[in-house]
């Protein structure tokens, strides 16, 4: 039986998503411990051209399961065919809508165990051990495949669970997935595409996030947040309240029904910290909150909680950081 570890590698315009680089590193670590190889299942626009580049990220091989802008779910049958011949130990999937769609299809098509989203994954006696924060983080659970469960173990991984390999070299050997009929999943078609008026960053790739909530009050109110994010080299995010109000695009919503992020620094501004938002950012390495309400729930889990008026504090913080950077 194969000791390989597969991972889903999403591409856009021939470039791997950060999730692909993170999962490549995770798969390489697990495969190394098991005596196998990391293998990327590449999909998305330009996947065929970019797949060899997964070698530098830790993959020995790459299998192209679909190239182009079709809904990702249409690549599910090819993914299943790529996995089926000699099933790997595990398959890591990003816990994004696209990653979950493919993972779910594999669970249904192959009848294999699913785990996650995990906060850590390891191997014990040749078996995957997945560690998860369950029930809104109120309990940590560890699960493994049942005896006789078929392979692979499908493991959903949140952004930031693994750290991409820096300065790697080498190319992955690239092949196409065995031919497979896309079946019913192939019937989903994109019939209209509506691009945004302005570019929207991928929050999952940001190392610093300044997030605004109801307290920001308006689209204009986000201006000082953009300025602070600018001096910190970061991105602006939001709570659901701010996205629902139309102050910011839904792509920038952090939380249970938005993005789950794990930046080095998260600064929450005018965000109360309801559980639905918290589950989207609670694994950030450093959490700073600025809120005028001394009893805001975010004050209970932030690392640094500043009670104050965001419109007074945020611009001064931006100036202070500029001043200190200018001196150094």
């Amino acid at each position, binding site marked *: 039986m194969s000791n390989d570890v597969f991972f889903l590698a999403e591409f856009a315009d021939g470039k791997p998503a950060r999730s692909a680089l993170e999962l490549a590193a995770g798969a390489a670590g697990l495969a190394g411990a098991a005596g196998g190889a990391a293998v990327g299942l590449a999909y998305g626009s330009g996947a065929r051209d970019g797949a060899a580049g997964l070698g530098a990220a830790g993959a020995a091989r790459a299998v192209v399961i679909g190239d182009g802008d079709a809904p990702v779910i249409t690549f599910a049958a090819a993914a299943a065919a790529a996995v089926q011949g000699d099933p790997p130990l595990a398959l890591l999937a990003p816990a994004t809508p696209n990653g979950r769609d493919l993972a779910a299809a594999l*669970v*249904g098509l192959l009848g294999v165990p699913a785990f996650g989203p995990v906060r850590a994954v390891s191997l014990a006696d040749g078996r995957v051990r997945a560690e998860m924060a369950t029930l809104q983080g109120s309990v940590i659970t560890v699960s493994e495949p049942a005896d006789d469960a078929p392979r692979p173990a499908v493991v959903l991984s949140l952004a930031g669970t693994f750290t991409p390999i820096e300065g790697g070299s080498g190319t992955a050997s690239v092949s196409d997935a065995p031919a497979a009929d896309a079946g019913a999943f192939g019937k989903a078609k994109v019939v209209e595409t509506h691009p945004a008026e302005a570019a929207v960053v991928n929050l999952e790739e940001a190392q610093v996030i300044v997030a605004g909530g109801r307290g920001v009050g308006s689209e204009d109110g986000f201006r000082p947040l953009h300025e602070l994010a600018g001096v910190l080299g970061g991105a602006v995010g939001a709570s659901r309240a701010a996205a629902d109000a139309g102050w910011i695009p839904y792509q920038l919503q952090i939380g249970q029904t938005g993005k789950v992020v794990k930046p080095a620094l998260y600064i929450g501004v005018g965000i109360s910290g309801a559980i639905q938002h918290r589950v989207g950012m609670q694994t950030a390495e450093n959490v*700073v909150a600025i809120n005028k309400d001394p009893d805001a729930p975010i004050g209970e889990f932030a690392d640094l909680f500043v009670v104050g008026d965001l419109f007074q504090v945020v611009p001064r913080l931006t100036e202070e950081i500029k001043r200190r950077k200018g001196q150094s």
Partner: protein
Amino acid sequence: MKIVVCIKQVPATTAEKRYGADLRLDRASAESVINPLDEYAVEQALRLQESGAAESVAYLSMGPESAGEALRRALAMGGDEAYLVTDGALAGADEWATARVLAAALDRLAPDVALMGMASDDARGSLVPGAVAAIRGLPLLSYGAELTLGDGAARIRRLSAAGFDIIEAPLPVVASVTDQVGEPRYASLKGIMAAKRKPMETWSLADIGLSADDVHGAALTRMVEARPPEAKAPTERVENVSADEAAAKIADWLAARKLI
């Protein structure tokens, strides 16, 4: 046109949760509610029924007998009938087993649209809609910010990297919707009274043509440990200072962690 909304009963977000000696959640110890994200699926289905795009709306749940309460609550919001799959052999079911059971029940109900919420509050894998579609051999339309029906097809509006796409598939489909479809309605008193008279059927595994072996003893996964989360360092608080002082304190804090 028939819609079946799949509903999960979950412990309330605010409820104290305990795990039993078998590492299973002691569901009796916690107040239970309809999974909040499933309420958006209910709302979407009822809007489609009200607009005439769908003739009937039914609900399906898998869970202990008490999950019938969640189905009654959904019926109080609207809709016509409900089905509960409950069986001792399903205790501790994982996502694969849940999908297998829902798929078998949906095969019997044969809806044009099997509709679900985008995630459950307690597990958050979001894998059940896609796995059900795979098992039933149907197209999947997931993460819809809106679902529309017409001309023998279903369409969703789905966020893309920057804007949004409209994705279409021929019926029947499995679909999931997000919390952007519109706020779920409250059940009225009249609705609650009416719900008591709406039909609810209870099915065992055998009733939907499955055995305990078919669902691999309810799970392909096994929990080996449940423990409380690590204690977090206490929060540093800065209050009753001027905005200048607050800004300086934050900058000091960031500098001490080499974040600036």
